[in-house]
């Protein structure tokens, strides 16, 4: 049985009153949700908050999920994405009003290769970043990405194309600078 089918089965069990099924869903989907939000925002606390809030929302509206409309993973990613964008927009507004509340970015300098790919992904425009993260790291189809982000499939395709092109350019540029090519 495929993983996505198992997730959907757990969700149906949860909708029918099996509380343990929710724990299983959490164990399966906590990691992908966290890594998506973290790679997008590079904020550990925000990523934890969003994952927790996503599951709060899932519990509150558990009967809204319909397995015929799509996979549970896409459904949860959609909730998490919307929560994250709302929170980030609210933050932006607060920071423009009170600029001294802007936190100092903590970066983990583990080794140079990691920093480079992190920087390259972080440098992508928001629209391209979210598409490339869902496509590459979460193995999602363009239709699923379009549904999660609420944009047409054509836009997903073009953003993905632009993102890959830009990543290639960024990484090649960096290699020339460091002299590894």
């Amino acid at each position, binding site marked *: 049985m495929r993983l996505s089918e198992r997730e959907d089965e757990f969700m149906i069990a949860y909708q029918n009153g099996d509380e343990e099924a929710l724990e299983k869903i959490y164990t399966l989907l906590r990691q992908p949700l966290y890594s998506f939000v973290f790679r997008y925002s590079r904020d550990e*606390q925000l990523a934890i908050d969003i994952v927790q809030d996503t599951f709060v929302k899932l519990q509150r509206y558990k009967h809204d999920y319909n397995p015929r409309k799509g996979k549970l993973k896409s459904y949860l990613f959609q909730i998490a994405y919307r929560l994250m964008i709302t929170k980030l927009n609210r933050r932006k507004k607060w920071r423009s009003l009170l600029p001294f509340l802007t936190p100092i970015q903590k970066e983990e300098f583990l080794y140079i290769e990691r920093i480079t790919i992190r920087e390259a992904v972080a440098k992508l425009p928001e629209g391209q970043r979210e598409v490339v993260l869902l496509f590459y790291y979460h193995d999602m189809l363009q239709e699923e990405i379009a549904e999660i982000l609420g944009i047409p499939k054509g836009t997903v395709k073009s953003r993905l194309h632009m993102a890959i092109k830009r990543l290639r350019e960024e990484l090649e540029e960096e290699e020339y600078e460091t002299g590894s090519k």
Partner: protein
Amino acid sequence: MRQDLNKDHHLRKRLDEYHIDIPDFPMKPNRWERFIHFLASPAKDPLDPLISTSNGLLVLKLVPIIGTTAIAFIQVLLIL
């Protein structure tokens, strides 16, 4: 598109290097903990632009003195 990316071994290799450590956290949010995190998160010093220049530093030293003098003067005027 996926085939295109799969063919580009170099880019794939680089993207695969982006590992992240996932911390252990419970499913239920703790509002109090979130508030503590918010308070404890490091923030920019609002006086930083003043401290970095010599004129700014002078302003920072003079403002309390001028302020105190002004308040004292107002109080004296009110008493008289």
